[in-house]
């Protein structure tokens, strides 16, 4: 017993470093990304007094005097310009006009020689409940605004969830496009990969080795090298256009790069091994006398394929397809380099929000959407491959 428990202790000791490392640098980052998506402290941090008073407000009538004094007090004590800028940006996104209103108000408040009596005397807009409503809504430290906006939903002034107007509905277009491109890539991978795996599994000796090597070689090659290679092949003066022109098939170069065609071709090339290998590994377990048996019973090749080989290998096709689809929806590099502006997928948009406009909330919210989709699909894949192992 003591030998067993000391062995368990040793195993735990061996597991601990990686476990702690991944909790610290894998699980925690994902959680902090998710919390970025729902946290909204930009306004509450600067306006604590207003937050206390605004709770009693009925959200309809013009602002009360205590609200105005509290807000003036809060704004006077702000000394962090960057935080102020963050707050104004946040408020302005909820209600346009806040930018000018705030700068007018803060400069009026700085005038200590003759301090303004209330906010309405600084600007008439402070009378309107809409602006106060924006502040009241923004004061909550948690928000579902980003998560809703990630799927093009928003809350109206009454707090009900509704679709955003069409001109703001960009994310759904991108989500649909991401899934559509991933589906197309999965489809072309299946169209090439399935027959490829069947042929490879039916061969023996060096021919089979050659076909497998042709799949493994790209897999070992850097993704960037492969993308660069397609960049060279697909460009207007590239080899493919040169070849087609030389063959006399086209007169003017085909537009193959910076559009959907290029993205699909390059992504199919990158992900094809993930389709071929799972199918191949299922196919080689199928006894190779089944097809002749079906033929001897009178099935023509198509019927034999449909009734024998296809059902038996479907599991491999499903695993491969899921693997390709999961990888494709998270793709960033290939669409960024080969695609045009109309081919950017959800990853590019996340990267844009994070690095381009420092909108961490939106980046986090779209990240949550992508993460959930990926993990769901992966759990299906894991179940498929677990059943696979159970069968053996």
């Amino acid at each position, binding site marked *: 017993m003591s030998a067993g428990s000391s062995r368990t202790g040793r195993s735990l000791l*061996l597991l601990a470093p*990686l476990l702690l490392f991944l909790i610290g640098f894998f699980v925690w980052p994902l959680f902090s*990304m998710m919390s970025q998506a729902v946290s909204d402290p930009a306004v509450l941090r600067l306006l604590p007094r207003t937050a206390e008073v605004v709770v009693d407000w009925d959200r309809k009538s013009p602002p009360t005097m205590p609200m105005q004094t509290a807000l003036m007090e809060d704004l006077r004590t702000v000394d962090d310009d960057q935080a102020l800028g963050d707050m104004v940006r946040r408020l302005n996104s909820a209600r346009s006009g806040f930018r000018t209103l705030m700068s007018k108000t803060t400069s009026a408040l700085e005038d200590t020689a003759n301090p303004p009596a209330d906010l309405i005397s600084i600007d008439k807009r402070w009378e309107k409940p809409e602006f106060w409503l924006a502040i009241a809504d923004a004061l909550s430290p948690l928000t579902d605004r980003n998560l809703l906006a990630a799927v093009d939903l928003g809350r109206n002034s009454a707090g009900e969830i509704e679709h955003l107007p069409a001109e703001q509905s960009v994310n759904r277009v991108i989500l649909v496009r991401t899934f559509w491109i991933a589906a197309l890539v999965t489809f072309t991978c299946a169209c090439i990969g399935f027959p490829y795996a069947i042929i*490879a599994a039916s061969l023996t000796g060096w021919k089979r080795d050659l*076909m497998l090597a042709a799949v493994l070689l790209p897999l070992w*090659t*850097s993704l960037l090298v492969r993308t660069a290679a397609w960049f060279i092949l697909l*460009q207007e003066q590239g080899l493919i256009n040169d070849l087609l022109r030389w063959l006399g098939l086209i007169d003017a170069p085909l537009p193959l790069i910076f559009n959907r065609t290029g993205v699909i071709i390059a992504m199919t090339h990158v992900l094809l091994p993930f389709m071929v290998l799972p199918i191949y590994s299922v196919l080689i377990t199928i006894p190779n006398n089944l097809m002749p048996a079906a033929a001897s019973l009178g099935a023509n090749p198509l019927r034999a394929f449909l009734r024998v080989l296809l059902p038996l290998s479907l599991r491999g096709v499903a695993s491969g397809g899921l693997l390709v689809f999961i990888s494709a929806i998270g793709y*960033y590099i290939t669409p960024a*380099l080969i695609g045009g502006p109309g081919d950017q997928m959800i990853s590019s948009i996340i990267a844009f929000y994070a690095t381009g406009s420092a909108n961490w909330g939106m980046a986090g919210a779209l990240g949550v959407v992508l993460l959930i989709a990926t993990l769901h699909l992966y759990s299906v894949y894991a179940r498929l491959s677990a059943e696979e192992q159970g069968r053996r």
Partner: protein
Amino acid sequence: MPMKLTKFAFASLAILFLVAPLIAILPLAFTSSVILTYPIPSWSLRWFEELFTADAWRRAIVNSLIIGSGTTLLATVLGVAASLGLRNRLIFFRGTMRTLFLLPMVVPAVVLGVGLQVLLAGFGLTNSYAGVIIAHTVVAVPFVVVSVTGALAGIDERVELAAQSLGASPTTVFRRVTLPLAMPGVLSGAVLAFATSLDEVVLTLFVAGPNQRTLARQMFSSLRENISPAIAAAAFLFIAMTLLIGLVVVLSRSFLAKRR
């Protein structure tokens, strides 16, 4: 035999599709032209010279080697230890831990990148080698775990029990029996970790500063901004490095096999 001909034609075309792009990029590394297109006017090594003398490229190569070595070391140590721990079937949540160790392979790099940037900024680790090495290790460690657990599963436990019964301490058993037997798996894990780090772009984009630009990151930005045959030369270097590492693994494996 039209069926056989169709099969042959399909297989040849598919192989061409898979391999031709990789072959097509290599000769362009030796072009004397400033544009990245065929036909090649004359051969020259000017782009390799550029790669090793231009500040941006040279620093990128050095950075890739530093970060790759750091990642390999950290990922291999963590991954081998964890794989040894996972052998014990009595451990609670063994399956959950295994899944957790493999999950970084699945999570989209951009999602992890956003999270890591937020977190590492909190620790003041963005724009540092340590930050990049940590980020690369997260995605490299699954490869080590997969290949080492595979190698460990192939070890006959009776060999270790025999050593133990002959009076060897657990450390001696590990050092003299388990580790040598698992060495091929450890080696391929280490190589995969290095290759992952070498090829990683997305996390690097989020975590690294201008001083930690890796070769892959530099290739990414030059493909985006100023395309020159230096990219083809870098690609050549990449492929050469991959082949070299593959060769080292094959040789050391056969060396290990012979010694036994």
